[in-house]
């Protein structure tokens, strides 16, 4: 069985927020709730970089571990879903989540938060009918054989979604192309050499990228 994953290639993300808009539109989530967000580091500096974040559908999901009502659960394909009928709005998932994915429509006194909402990987959630499912959780594109709309609509294909192995293969190929020393996210000595006009020597800097080609 495939394991579904998101992956955002921070070097391609142009902070257009198309994923955020696509998600909002596909799932019609409540006002104030935004399942996906785009984070920009070093905004306005030469090293500015952006990354799109939502639920990352963790293998060992902290939200599932701490939820007192078993609202959160993981499907066989790795997608972490939530059951709105069980949620009591205690906020534990929000304390535990590494990515700030769970959100609540309210934040009122006496812990009145309403029902938690989070990214479903466009896979809906438990409901009796399709209409109910759409109202509660938004689209179930996975059931229609489609990938999450955020990734489908990403203009630079920075945001990838799908089977972890395929996503990893695509990213690995990009890393090899870029010749990054350690996984594509840190300093890129070859780019600096190319820019400085010092040629295109692959010998020293690309050991990890080379390793990546050997693993694939």
């Amino acid at each position: 069985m495939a394991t579904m994953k998101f992956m955002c290639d921070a070097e391609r993300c142009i902070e257009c927020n198309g994923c955020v808009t696509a998600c909002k539109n596909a799932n019609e989530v409540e006002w104030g709730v935004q399942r996906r967000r785009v984070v920009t580091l070093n905004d306005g500096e030469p090293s500015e970089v952006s990354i799109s974040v939502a639920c990352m559908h963790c293998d060992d999901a902290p939200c599932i571990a701490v939820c007192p009502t078993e609202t959160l659960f993981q499907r066989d394909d790795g997608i972490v879903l939530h059951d709105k009928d069980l949620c009591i709005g205690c906020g534990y998932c929000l304390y535990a989540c590494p990515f700030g994915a769970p959100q609540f429509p309210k934040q009122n006194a006496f812990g009145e938060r309403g029902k938690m909402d989070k990214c479903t990987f466009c896979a809906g959630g438990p409901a009796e009918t399709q209409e109910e499912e759409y109202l509660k959780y938004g689209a179930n594109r996975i059931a229609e054989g489609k990938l999450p709309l955020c990734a489908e609509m990403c203009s630079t294909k920075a945001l990838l979604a799908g089977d972890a192995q395929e996503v990893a293969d695509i990213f690995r190929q990009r890393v090899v192309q870029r010749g990054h020393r350690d996984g594509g996210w840190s300093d890129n000595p070859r780019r600096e050499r190319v820019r400085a006009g010092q040629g295109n020597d692959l010998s020293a800097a690309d050991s990890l990228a080379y390793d990546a080609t050997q693993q694939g």
Partner: protein
Amino acid sequence: MNTSTPWRGLWRLSLLILALVVSLGLAQTALAQADPGREAAIAVPALDADVWRQVKNGETGPNYRDSRFDSNYNLINASGETWRQLRDRWVSPFGVIVILGMIAVIGLFYLVFGSKKLDEPRTGRKLLRWSLVIRSLHWTVASLFILLALTGLNLAYGKAIFRPLFGDGFWAAMMSGTKLIHNYLGPLFGILLVILLLRLLAHNIPRKHDLAWFAKGGGLIGKGHPDAGFANAGEKLWYWLLATAGIAVIVSGLVLDFPNYGQGRDTMQWANIIHAVGAFGLTAVALGHIYIGTLGTEASFEAMATGYVDESWAKEHHNLWYEDVKDQAVPEEQLAATRPHSRGEEPTPRSG
């Protein structure tokens, strides 16, 4: 022949240029496909490893932006996993051990030593110990404590027991109710406990003889009683536990209960740990308090039930207080006769 040579040369030259142009174009497509330097050269400059280390530690720079409305989240919630490990690996097992352990210890103690009987028979003369106000406060706080403890335990451990037992429908309603009771009655408990603590403060100032009381283990086992005033050292310990750990549980509970003030995730993680550790500990000690006040000691329960204690009980358990108030003892019959009329206007008890 000579005249035709330049023509031929020109023809060759144009062919050569055409070939060059075509090959150049081909070379460029080949370059785009195969030259790894190309994507490297146009890619966005990446951040160095130190920046990603900062992200992993939950730090944000001055030029950090988040597209989500009103968000105070960083990219990685670094303390989330710490909180999860603390809660699931340490606090949850601690609660089970300390509460089940206390039940086991009390059960064993009762089986081995039994309850503490009065050494002398009752005299039938009664002393006023707790006024109606204190008793009402005590039983309200006690009921709320039990309700909060049960709902709190259900929030912590209920999913392991009740979901498989009752099925989803009932379980969902049960958990919603649990959270409502816990969140709305919690602050009420907090207010009433503070009032009760303030009213009982005068009785619970530590004295020198309290040390001797502890040294003798409170006379819990065997015959004989160490000196004690209106409140013995054990009661004072329970009082000061509530005045410290109890207040910590209340304050941390309020932090969790009122997210409308915008406190961050980190604050609420710590509040949750303090709340859980304090509440499990207090629940365990409360079991001891309940045991001593009911099964554990003969004639203790009537103090908080009726407000009056027997002279013999006072002499044995609170000898110093008894010396102060022994002249106020009232015969049981007289008390029974006056009770219906004097409700609510009983004399305030004198402390020792």
